[in-house]
């Protein structure tokens, strides 16, 4: 990308961040997360108890919010995108600016909503590893579902259908997929399932993020598993690195598809 494209992208990013800061959606998201986290810590009996609940909350809420904010933003911003594209603004810098302008504030809102109450409760020092993992998983999930939100919004031109598709993707990734995995585990219980299970996890970003959290919060249980592959995967840095790499791939590939769609789109 040329310098001019980069500077255009950065400008777009700046406008977008200011624009989002002005809308109440992100502040509301951060505040709701902060209230939930604070509630879990204070009424749930401390950080050790709150972290697992928070982890479940994060893998449910972050994908949903990221998807809905992204799809609705892309649709409501349609006219504005058109306006910008009638000026000397390239599509690639515009896309990247918009993408980062959504993913970064969403991620920042998430981190603020979770880390501020946890920090106030002192969890950052007492449960550093657990908190860091939940924060990392949530931040990566934000990026993944911002990418997927762009793909959905750019492919489903009707806002209502895009919203429907976003909800469906969320429901499938957050709940239904795991149900299918569980049924599959029973259906093929007689076979060695370790590797297939890990592959199935890799195919769903929500599961990858959850597995990342499980590695931090349930290492003792995972190490109690009989199979060597799980032991290797959950026992050390390799599994963690693979999970993070997997989430990065889940961010980059859909973002790349979305950018290609955006470059070909007619306004």
């Amino acid at each position, binding site marked *: 990308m040329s310098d001019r494209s980069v500077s255009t992208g950065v400008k777009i990013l700046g*406008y977008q961040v200011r624009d989002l800061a002005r809308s109440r959606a992100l502040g509301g998201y951060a505040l709701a997360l902060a209230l939930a986290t604070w509630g879990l810590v204070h009424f749930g009996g401390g950080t050790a108890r709150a972290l697992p609940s928070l982890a479940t909350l994060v893998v449910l809420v972050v994908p949903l919010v990221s998807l809905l904010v992204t799809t609705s933003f892309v649709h409501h911003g349609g006219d504005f995108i058109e306006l910008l*594209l*009638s000026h*000397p603004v390239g599509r*690639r810098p515009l896309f990247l600016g918009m993408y980062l302008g959504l993913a970064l504030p969403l991620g920042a809102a998430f981190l603020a909503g979770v880390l501020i109450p946890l920090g106030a409760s002192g969890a950052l020092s007492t449960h550093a590893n657990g908190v860091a993992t939940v924060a990392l998983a949530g931040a990566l999930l934000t990026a993944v579902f911002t990418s997927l939100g762009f793909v959905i919004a750019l492919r489903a031109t009707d806002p209502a259908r895009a919203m429907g598709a976003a909800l469906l993707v969320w429901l499938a990734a957050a709940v239904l997929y795991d149900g299918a995995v569980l049924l599959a585990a029973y259906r093929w219980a007689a076979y060695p399932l370790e590797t297939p299970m890990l592959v199935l996890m890799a195919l769903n970003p929500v599961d990858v993020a959850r597995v990342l959290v499980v590695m931090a919060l349930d290492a003792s249980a995972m190490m109690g598993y009989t199979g060597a592959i799980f032991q290797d995967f959950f026992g050390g840095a390799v599994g963690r690195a693979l999970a993070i790499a997997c989430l990065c791939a889940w961010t980059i590939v859909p973002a790349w598809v979305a950018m290609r769609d955006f470059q070909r789109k007619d306004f």
Partner: protein
Amino acid sequence: MIRVRGLTKRFGARAVLEEVDVHFRSGAVTALLGPNGAGKTTLLKCVLGLVRPSEGDVLVEGEPIDPDGSYRHGIGYMPQLPNFPPHMTGLELARMLDDLRDFRGRPDEELIEALDLRAELGEPFRTLSGGTRQKVNAALAFRYRAPILILDEPTAGLDPVASLALKAGVRACRTEGRTVVVTSHNLGDLQTIADHVVFLHEGRVRYDGSLGDLLATTRRSTLQEAIADLMRGSDATSRRETGRDTNEADPERRHLEVVR
């Protein structure tokens, strides 16, 4: 100067533009006309790079349009609908566009002065009336003194004073040698400013020539009447082309359907 060559645009199976060849000259105002759905806006969007042609190409100032959009430095565009971010003020939008265009010159604010828009520019768009938004829309198109001006239904929703000011602006552009393309339903307005007429119907160019020639060949005194003739002719053509009802066609005007 804009040259469109062999431009076809299909949305799915439906062709919105078919093999369009037109030339928007500099130092002239071209009226782009046609009934609703004729493909006027799509053609303009192809020129702006907002819509990707299925076939054919667009040359702006002799150069094929580049994907990074930097050629749009040379274009001022007034879209049909002034859909601006509701919470932004005109001033904020103008500053942002200045920034995005790396515009450091003196902006053309004649329309702003002429329409006394200063106060409204400080208000968020959501508080402005449709007419005022359209004025801001027009002012933004002129702002960068671009060599090419594309105005899509510029007078829709404008009061007579604003309309007159806009037309004055367009005329000034012509004298400065700039290229102006205007679509409008208000043919009366267009007649007073247009040099050229391009008439689109069902995605094809049905007439491309000077306003004077059009009035002469149709033997009409107003653009409105001439266009009405063109439309009847075109309808007749399409009916004939689809194999129905050839009798109503007026043989005297048949030649108008032949473009260039």
